[in-house]
């Protein structure tokens, strides 16, 4: 509705504001009156003028930012919260709104960082947090941090959401494509959507639909990168032998898929076949340095071959790269315990239990 305001009306509003307001106090009072009267464009202009007169006015930047966000003026909102967080860096909502605006204006790297700071604040209203985590999940996927991104998107999906942007985000994440939904090429959108819908069914426990969806996907798009990885990951929880076959198919198509190699190594570790697992794990860490899953897989292989100290180093690297992953804390607990590092083992025990029981919310990805 507000977007429909004509240019003439806006111009009239601005002219009338400039004609009437002069001092900071007057501008601040008029801005508050306009805001309370729901005259949003007028309030925005008054707040803008007021903060120009007094750049240290925290409340002014706040209202300028929130009103701009409410009226889809993301650039203005972004500028306001950029100033706000310089004056007060303790407000989770401010960091979150700054990140969300940057998401909209295409500044994806700072958006990721600022959404992370917003989530670290832990005082967001649940409905706001859900939206922030959704965008954060999309950006993590774009940054290639697929496991961390999946946790965020899955949490959103578990809340019952199934809008197209979520489905596409889940699909890109599941297929390990470092893109936002709006960046996905049109020709790949069908595969992405089908992958996303099957992944959503898996997340919410609709296993029959998920299985059917994954089978259709593999049949229809056998040559699309990531499809066999996705199906293999799904199968690894129920049919490990079939999962290994799918992961091997993925590696034939895409030898550089480090996560496929890492998952295959983990399945071989669970089958106590450490010598077969080792080359896959080694290759995965070489292909993708700083990949948490690859480091974890290599650490688990080394644990299996009794190379305790190198295993601990790898698992610590995995934990550093993705501190919200329960598996990495659990593996470290076991490794420290075997190494006689009792205090470290106890700390990881506590972290694991807190994460698993929800006492600690997933820490945002570093």
């Amino acid at each position, binding site marked *: 509705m507000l977007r429909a305001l004509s240019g003439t009306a806006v111009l009239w509003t601005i002219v009338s504001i400039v004609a009437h307001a002069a001092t900071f106090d007057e501008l601040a009072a008029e801005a508050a009156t306009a805001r309370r009267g729901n005259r949003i464009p007028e309030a925005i202009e008054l707040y803008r003028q007021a903060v120009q007169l007094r750049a240290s006015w925290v409340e002014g930047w706040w209202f300028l930012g929130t009103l701009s966000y409410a009226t889809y003026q993301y650039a203005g909102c972004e500028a306001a919260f950029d100033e706000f967080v310089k004056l007060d860096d303790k407000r989770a909502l401010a960091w979150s709104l700054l990140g969300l605006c940057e998401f909209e204006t295409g500044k994806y790297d700072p958006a990721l960082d600022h959404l992370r700071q917003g989530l670290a604040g832990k005082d967001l209203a649940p409905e706001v947090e859900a939206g922030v985590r959704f965008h954060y999940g999309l950006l993590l996927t774009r940054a290639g941090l697929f496991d961390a991104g999946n946790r965020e998107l899955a949490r959103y999906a578990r809340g019952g959401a199934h809008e197209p942007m979520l489905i596409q985000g889940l699909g890109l994440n599941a297929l390990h494509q470092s893109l936002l939904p709006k960046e996905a090429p049109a020709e790949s959108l069908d595969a992405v959507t089908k992958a996303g819908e099957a992944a959503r069914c898996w997340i919410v426990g609709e296993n029959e639909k998920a299985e059917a969806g994954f089978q259709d996907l593999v049949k229809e798009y056998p040559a699309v990168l990531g499809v066999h990885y996705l199906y293999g990951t799904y199968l690894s929880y*129920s*049919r490990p032998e079939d999962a290994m076959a799918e992961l091997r198919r993925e590696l034939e198509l895409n030898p550089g898929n480090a996560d496929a190699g890492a998952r295959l190594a983990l399945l071989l570790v669970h089958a106590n076949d450490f010598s077969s697992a080792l080359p896959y794990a080694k290759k995965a860490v070489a292909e993708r340095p700083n990949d948490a899953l690859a480091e974890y897989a290599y650490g688990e292989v080394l644990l299996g071959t009794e190379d305790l100290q190198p295993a601990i180093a790898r698992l610590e690297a995995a934990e550093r790269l993705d501190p919200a992953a329960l598996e990495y804390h659990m593996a470290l607990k*076991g490794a*420290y*315990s*075997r190494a006689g590092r009792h205090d470290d*083992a106890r700390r990881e*025990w506590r972290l694991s*239990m807190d994460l*698993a029981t929800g006492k600690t919310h997933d820490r945002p990805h570093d």
Partner: protein
Amino acid sequence: MTDPMIDGFRQTGRPCLATALVAAVCAALAGAAQGAPKPAKVTCASCHRAEAQSQPKTPMGIGIELPPNQQPLETHPKLTVEENGYHYSVERKNGVSSYTVSDASGTLTLPVRYAFGVDNLTFVLEYQGHFYESLVSYYKKIEGLGITMGDDKIRPHDLTEAMGRQTSDQEIKACFTCHGTGGVSQGKLTLDSLRPGLTCEHCHAGADAHMQALTGGKPAPIPRKLGEMAAEEMSNFCGQCHRTWETVVGLRLFGEKNVRFQPYRLANSQCFLGDDKRIRCTACHDPHVDLVREEASYDRACLSCHTVSQKTCPVANKNCVSCHMPKVEVAGTPAVFTDHQIRVVHPGEPYPQ
């Protein structure tokens, strides 16, 4: 703890005693075979007589009761119970047991081919190409049927759901892997070759090859000595069937039902030190013999750490487990388990998850 055989090798630089023993056994067996039409067949009992004799009679050695040997059902030929509005019966006629569930809509009867457990039995049933875990089990404590542990929240909508909980492919393979031998091969169910219980090879990987080589009169690779494992590693080893700490936490199996997952409970104990052998599973339990039920017999394990020179218990100096490892009755079932989370238990405190 050092192994004198290995130490002997390290000190002398000569082949260790273990290798010498293997060579001696090979020579003896080969000698015994000389002039005979076939070489002597080496079994685990050839050298490990006591373990090989006692282990098959343990709960792990039995694992599953297969027809016609389903002992508790023989002594209780007709068992019935009403649960969730359904009538259940397990009846034995002419050496064959059957499981029946019925309500006003009809009756479903299936043969009991696999009775998992020893004192308490849960039935694995086949129906229309799928496997189901029976919704009621036999419990020794009540000498009757009750809801299967973990299934107390299930509210069946029809006879099939009332009969049992359909298992996943992975779950059913895990059941047969941990309760029997030969039931799973190369990732597939091979129930035609299923034998009840766990044989030596299950824990001592390489035992079969070891015996085959010895039968052929050749030196054989010795399976890994499991006694080398400290607490953490052994907990994970036994946890392959009894559930590891990681499995329980990863699947978030919290609440008092996890009292039956002993490696998980033990690993939560303050005194669980992963590199210490004094708190590993076999510090208290010899898997080759039946479970020892006298509480005082476990004092030795507690006192191996809590010596008189350390702070000791202000209440008692014996029967430690009677207080520090309380019995937990799992709600909704007649089953009672010893809680392996060793701790100072305060009256009225909630079950530590």
